[in-house]
């Protein structure tokens, strides 16, 4: 009896092991970061606190991210595999977004989904190649940038019968750009 149960378990495990996805986010040390990126990080203002380094792998694509707190604001700076800045994201409260843009974003949710609930909002400053990376970051952190940010909004949305959590991107004027569905596994690793 016991051997049968064991065999059944081994069988189930094998079936289960074969379906591993190649998607991973891991915490790394500063030294594992691309060298070019380390130079940029060194130039961050001194009062950037709690620097944490992450590496993300999604199939063939690799990217790096450093998260920190600056003047109580949570920031996340993303780099490509080669250490070129992709964007700087600053956590924000949905209600603090400019009225005009906010109402445009709200209208989008109202007209496309039967129900929605905001989970997280971020301002996304996309890096342009011709900019000096150090000045780009400094201007954003010191609030002196002339660039208008995009908005990245994570929300739970409901269409007819489906419900999922998605990450939406809205451009600087509050118009919808795209979305991706967020895999909920990380949200439910315990409980029933």
């Amino acid at each position: 009896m016991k051997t049968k149960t064991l065999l059944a378990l081994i069988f189930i495990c094998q079936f289960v092991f074969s379906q591993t996805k190649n998607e991973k986010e891991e915490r790394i040390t500063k030294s594992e970061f691309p060298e070019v990126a380390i130079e940029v990080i060194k130039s961050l203002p001194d009062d950037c606190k709690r620097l944490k380094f992450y590496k993300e792998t999604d199939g063939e694509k690799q990217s790096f991210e450093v998260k920190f707190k600056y003047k109580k604001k949570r920031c996340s700076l993303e780099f490509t595999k080669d250490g070129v800045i992709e964007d700087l994201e600053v956590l924000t409260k949905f209600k603090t977004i400019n009225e005009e843009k906010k109402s445009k974003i709200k209208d989008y949710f109202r007209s496309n989904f039967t129900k929605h609930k905001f989970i997280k909002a971020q301002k996304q400053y996309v890096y342009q190649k011709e900019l000096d990376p150090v000045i780009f970051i400094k201007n954003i952190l010191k609030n002196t940038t002339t660039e208008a940010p995009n908005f990245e909004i994570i929300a739970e949305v409901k269409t007819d019968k489906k419900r999922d959590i998605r990450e939406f991107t809205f451009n600087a004027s509050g118009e919808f750009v795209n979305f991706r569905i967020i895999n909920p596994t990380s949200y439910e690793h315990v409980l029933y």
Partner: protein
Amino acid sequence: MSYIKILVVLLACFSVHNTLFSQSDFEGLGETDFSFNTDVNDYYKLNFSVRSRYYLYQEENFDFENRQLDFVHFSTLSIDHNRSVSLGIQYRIRESIDGGSNELRLTQQYNYTKKNEALRFGHRARLEQRIFSDKTIIRSRYRFTLDFPLNGQKLDIGEAYIINSMEGLLSIGKNEKPELDHRTTLHLGLLVSEHLKIQFGLEYRFEAFNLNTEQKLFFLSSAILKI
């Protein structure tokens, strides 16, 4: 680094209990659990589990002895991504194993979680009706849980995670004094694949600490299959 700090604090909490091992009302038990979870749709989830409990240490002796077998079902309706209500039914077979009373248990549950970067806080409130052959006990319980992946902010396949929880329980029955229990649990889990999680844990229970305290240490192991 901060996770290591949290771990040290938790270990310190557990080591406080060490001094209590010497007492004779101490029992060591084990619990093994197989769970199957399945999503019927985005709103409705089902859980089935089989759980066995056995004595490992009692009356100052190490000794393996089966105690009970539970068959559990939970139906969960999620209100949104972080709130849910569940109904549960459980049957416990004990009479033919160690002579105790069998039990039918009905559970109503509300669960709320809040995520803060990697940390997730969980609040669970439960109301249970424990129907024994000679009495019925109403039990209310509240559990606070803190869980987080050990690497990064998101739990990926192949990564481990920690779950800590504290739970307070109040049992009320006719012709019986109200009983208060407290449980502290520490779990180490591994997300083996999209469909399988394995967890090992320790649970320390203070049972009826307002009447005549019994202390129990549980060694927990579980396999959770998601289909």
